[in-house]
């Protein structure tokens, strides 16, 4: 049996008195596409940042790629890729320069960097824009580039925080093609989204409400469990009870 990509038990993050993530427990299998859903402010980003070794958990335990999130963050970082909710590549570097920089930091050789650069520019069909500054690209392309950079070093797991936020339906579709391709290559995908159609693309999903995980299963089972027609109804059923919401 494959080892677990992520094991998370009672993981908690507190900011002062405020409990942003409240004792969440779940496991993600290797090779799985795991959807991490929740309303605004539910605590998705906070949880994801702990799993990526960007933030110290307050309590609980978790391992990512077999490493402890409390004291092996740097080992975790060697095995994961991360695409943050806010676009965070360098806008005043070109596409190829960003690829070269992050690839270089991850220890790719010069030949690998050159190949990667060409490959990515080709799959993303960005030949004409390869030398343009990233800041000038439309959002959809920026997101695709950010995803490509996040998996440039072939990590075991990639964390995607709302990778398709604010992007048109066609580009979203293309983005999910990229996600499936990565999953085919054996990368475990941990993804947050607010789009319920995207939730259906996941193998399993969890739904967070006010810092807790209130539901976790395959989309089909969840719909059965909540006797709902669509994922939208499931989400609405759960999120309705939420006290914490930005809107």
């Amino acid at each position: 049996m494959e080892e677990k990509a992520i094991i998370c038990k009672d993981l908690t993050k507190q900011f002062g008195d405020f409990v942003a993530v409240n004792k969440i427990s779940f496991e993600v299998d290797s090779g799985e596409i795991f959807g991490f859903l929740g309303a605004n402010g539910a605590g998705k980003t906070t949880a994801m940042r702990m799993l990526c070794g960007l933030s110290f958990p307050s309590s609980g335990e978790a391992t990512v790629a077999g490493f402890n999130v409390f004291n092996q963050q740097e080992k975790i970082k060697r095995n994961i890729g991360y695409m943050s909710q806010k676009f965070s590549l360098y806008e005043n570097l070109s596409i190829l320069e960003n690829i070269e920089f992050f690839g270089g930091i991850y220890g790719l050789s010069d030949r690998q960097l050159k190949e990667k650069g060409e490959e990515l520019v080709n799959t993303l069909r960005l030949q004409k824009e390869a030398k343009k500054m990233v800041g000038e690209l439309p959002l959809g392309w920026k997101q695709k580039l950010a995803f490509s950079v996040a998996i440039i070093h072939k990590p075991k797991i990639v964390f995607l925080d709302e990778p398709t936020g604010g992007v048109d339906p066609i580009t979203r579709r293309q983005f999910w093609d990229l996600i499936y391709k990565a999953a085919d290559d054996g990368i475990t995908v941990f993804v947050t989204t607010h789009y319920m159609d995207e939730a259906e693309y996941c193998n399993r999903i969890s739904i967070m409400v006010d810092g807790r995980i209130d539901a976790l299963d395959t989309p089909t089972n969840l719909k059965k469990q909540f006797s709902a027609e669509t994922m939208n109804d499931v989400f609405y059923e759960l999120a309705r009870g939420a006290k914490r919401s930005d809107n």
Partner: protein
Amino acid sequence: MRTLKFLLRKEFKQIFRDKGLLPLIFIMPMIQLLVMPLAANFDVKNVNVAIVDHDHSTYTQQLVNKIGASGYFRIANYSDSYKEALHLVEHEKADIILEIPQNFERNLIRENNQKVFLAADAINGVKGSIGSAYLTTVLTDFNSDVRLKWVQPQRLGAVSTIGIDYSNWFNPLMDYHKFMVPAILALLVTMVGGFVAALNIVREKEIGTIEQINVTPIKKWEFILGKMIPFWLIGIFDFTLGLLIARFVYGIIPVGSIATLYLFVSVYMIALLGFGLLVSTYSSNQLQAMFVAFFFMMIFILMSGLFSPVENMPQWAKVISNLTPVTHFVEVMRMIVLKGSTFANIKKQFFIEIIFAVVLNSWAIWNYRKTS
């Protein structure tokens, strides 16, 4: 090491693409070095001295003439009342009071030693302190005249001294530029290096790119070093440009060794950039970093002895002054450029800067958190 290569390549590309930063780094310092000494120069040519003479000897008369003839001073008043002189300073009619005690002539000849008293207006500090420094030179000059005239052949070795407050004045040509240009150069290198470094990491925090860096397995020291090296080179480049301006515009050629000068600046830049990066790691946005850096830079610069001599400061201020890297740099700049001091002379300051460099940078690396 390979990681460092990519960091540096990226950092240089960003610096040279930043249209706002380039003039700040390369042009503004040069303009300041060209303008600041010229602007300040005019003031210092007309230092108003109030002389309080309790001696009224031919000797004091000679001294007064000499001061008047130097071209830098205007004798604002000549009397035997200190009160009257003080009154003039209070009404900004005089910048410096020179008090000559009773029996000045007699003591100088008989005992080979006589003190005069110097008081400088602290409100117009630049004029007061530079004026005092000039006056010291005139007095020292005058003093050696005395020796030539009065000293007996068998006592040739003995030098009669006039004790005065300012002891380390070493600009015999009394050229204001020579006094200020090395210090202003020190100031500019400090400002550019300090601010640029302080604003850099925090900028990556503000636009969010640091998140993408922090999630890679990059080492903390690699990241800090990747920030440090480009700014270090810029600092050295600015310093070199400044030396060239000093040479070709002001005709100042360092008396001491250029190699020693660069050795010292190299270490100083590391200490200063360490300070900037430290501020950056503590701040969460550029505005905050700017204010914090500005606060410390003001203290550093005002306390550095750039405008008012450190030896005139009260004890507590001297302590603070010695705790800033800038003070030692300004001192060494003047020592090497004007006095021709050798490495042996500046050894103490050199090791102090090394300590600053090690402490500030270790602190910055320690405080830079990849996991918060």
